[in-house]
């Protein structure tokens, strides 16, 4: 009796010492997370709130801020250039999605065992390795009037060349084509790694059941590539919404602002040589953020659902 009582007391004593010991399991994750949370709060959360706050002011970056309330937004929704940018952003989103199927087909094409296939794979991946700035420059030369390859080709075919980057009808498509080049390579590499994990026994079984070609791809391969597709769609949507470098390098938003996208318009208003309307730029950023949030929350929702195994 006494023996068991003492062990019980000893056991409770061993459990009680220190708040730390008692809460170790609850606290440890937070401590490990703390640096990440601090960074995230400082570099992501705070700037988001600060730009929302700034979007209610008129500020040139130097002088004093004046409170405007919603005036920046009122002006924004009456701003032709804003709608041009928004429209271009939508074109970007839609056409950029072509990178996903295109990447898939390049990956399927390259997923074979031939001598030197690694070299071909690296060559196809190359555009993603070089900087967007370089891609932009290469394509501006490609489109350049009088000496560009594309211009001369069109001239040879139709008699009159088209200066893609000087024509408000084609300019956005021209830039998107340049953007697709590296983006397809990116999707391709995602699918290539995905294809490595396709279960050979399922393919074998499908083959025995007589699946072939499109049927095989649609019912057997693609379902197994779902994680790769998900990531490819996410990076492509985000890539389309944050498109900035190519617009800046290839046209600077021109001709007469017809190739602007929201991120570029924000930069132009807030930071470029003729801009410095910080509040207005911030308002554009907030709108862009809201659009991105639609997609991002969608993705997060899907990810959480998948993790719970629903």
């Amino acid at each position, binding site marked *: 009796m006494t023996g068991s009582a003492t062990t019980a007391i000893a056991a409770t004593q061993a459990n009680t010492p220190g708040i730390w010991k008692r809460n170790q399991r609850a606290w440890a994750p937070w401590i490990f997370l703390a640096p990440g949370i601090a960074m995230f709060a400082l570099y992501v959360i705070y700037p988001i709130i600060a730009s929302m706050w700034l979007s209610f002011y008129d500020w040139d970056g130097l002088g004093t801020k004046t409170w405007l309330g919603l005036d920046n937004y009122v002006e924004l929704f009456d701003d032709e250039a804003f709608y041009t940018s928004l429209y271009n952003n939508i074109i970007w989103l839609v056409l950029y999605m072509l990178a996903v199927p295109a990447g898939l087909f390049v990956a399927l094409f390259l997923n074979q065992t031939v001598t030197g296939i690694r070299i071909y794979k690296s060559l196809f991946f190359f555009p993603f390795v070089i900087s967007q700035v370089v891609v932009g420059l290469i394509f501006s030369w490609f489109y350049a009037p009088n000496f560009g390859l594309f211009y001369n080709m069109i001239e040879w075919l139709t008699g009159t060349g088209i200066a893609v980057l000087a024509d408000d009808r084609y300019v956005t498509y021209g830039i998107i084509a340049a953007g697709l080049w590296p983006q397809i390579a990116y999707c391709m590499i995602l699918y290539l790694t995905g294809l490595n994990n396709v279960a050979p026994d399922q393919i074998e079984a499908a083959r025995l059941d007589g699946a072939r070609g499109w049927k095989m791809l649609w019912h057997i391969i693609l379902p197994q590539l779902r994680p790769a597709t998900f990531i490819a769609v996410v990076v492509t949507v985000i890539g389309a919404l944050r498109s900035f470098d190519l617009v800046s390098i290839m046209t600077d938003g*021109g001709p007469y602002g017809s190739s602007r996208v929201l991120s570029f318009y924000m930069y132009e208003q807030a930071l470029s040589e003729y801009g410095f309307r910080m509040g207005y730029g911030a308002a554009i950023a907030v709108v862009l953020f809201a659009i991105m949030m639609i997609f991002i929350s969608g993705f997060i929702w899907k990810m959480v659902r998948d993790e719970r195994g629903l």
Partner: protein
Amino acid sequence: MKLSRKSALLGTAAFALMATQAVAEQRTLKYYADFDPAPLAAFEAAIAEFEAANPDIDVVLQNFDHEGYKTAIRNFLSADSPDLANWYAGNRMAPFVNAGQFMDITDVWTDNNLGESLASAKGSMTIDGKQWGVPYTYYQWGIYYNKDAYKQAGVEVPKTWAEFIDNCAKFKEAGIDCVTTGTKALWPGAGIFDYMNLRTNGYDFHMELTAGKVAWTDDRVKNTFAEWAKLVEPGYVTANHAALDWQDAASLLIQGKAANYVMGNFAVAVFKDGGMTNDTLGFMQFPEITPGLPRGEEAPTDTIHIPAGAKNVDDAKKFLAFIATADVQTKLNEALGQLPINNQSKVGDDPFLQAGFEMLSTADGGIAQFFDRDAPAEMAKVGMEGFQEFMVRPENLDKILERLEKARQRIYK
């Protein structure tokens, strides 16, 4: 072993150098600038001369890339201010003056009698009746033309706008672009607009327009665009100019594929690099459109300012007074290939400079700075986009002017 001894020696040498500098007890004068290589060399020579005359002052020049400087200045003026900084005259300096970031240096002007010697630029350096910087150079804008192209089309250099347009028809027949430009960076188009407006409505109206006092939908503005349309609608301007940089357009002129180019005098160096000589390159002032108007010209002025946060103000003022002297401006501009502001200075032998000097000193209308310096930055951006659009789609004119008018009402409150 050998290597390390060498570097040790170098180290002592450097240390000794530092020591002598410390002994001399020089006051440093920090100067931020955005010079291209040729002007940089000229300024280094001028600084050496200044240091020789003032052995107790050590000018430390920090040179920036042109485009980067325009952003950098906003940061360094409020964060780590130098004693001197380059900028531009006219409305372009207004944001810094209004934000109290440039120092009022009216005393430098009065003490050195600059109001007289720099008279032509006084207006563009004055805000609220005070002077805010010292100009050291300007250059003319006008029409540069390819003499061979004129011969090929068999036309004479025009005197009036009507003759100019007539020539254009002949150039077009000969397969030559009458007027070339490259508006990818927008500003070259503004040069054409400035002259169209200066010649159609005169300097005073142009200044009122850029100061936001006249509506863009005003009939007089429409007259300017109607004259301009005579050039645009028949396709006398280089096609695809919206995809060209100004240098690309310059090479069209060099190759004789284009006849005329409305440009600043800095382009002469590019033309000559491309193989043009004084025999093939010509310069004319923009032809008269509305007869009898006092002739206004365009000559952007580059300036030096003292930031409000400067630490060594006395020496900075001394340096500005030095830069304003006739002799220094002569030498500087000889090297820059531009025109001195000081009316006692001598102008270089270059025929284009001589022509520009002649043209500017007889301009009875007034001297404009350039659209993006006369108009506030935001208006300049919207305006220049409008000019570019007009030169591509002249049929959109009404829409463009309405957009500019809307911007005007917002920007000039």
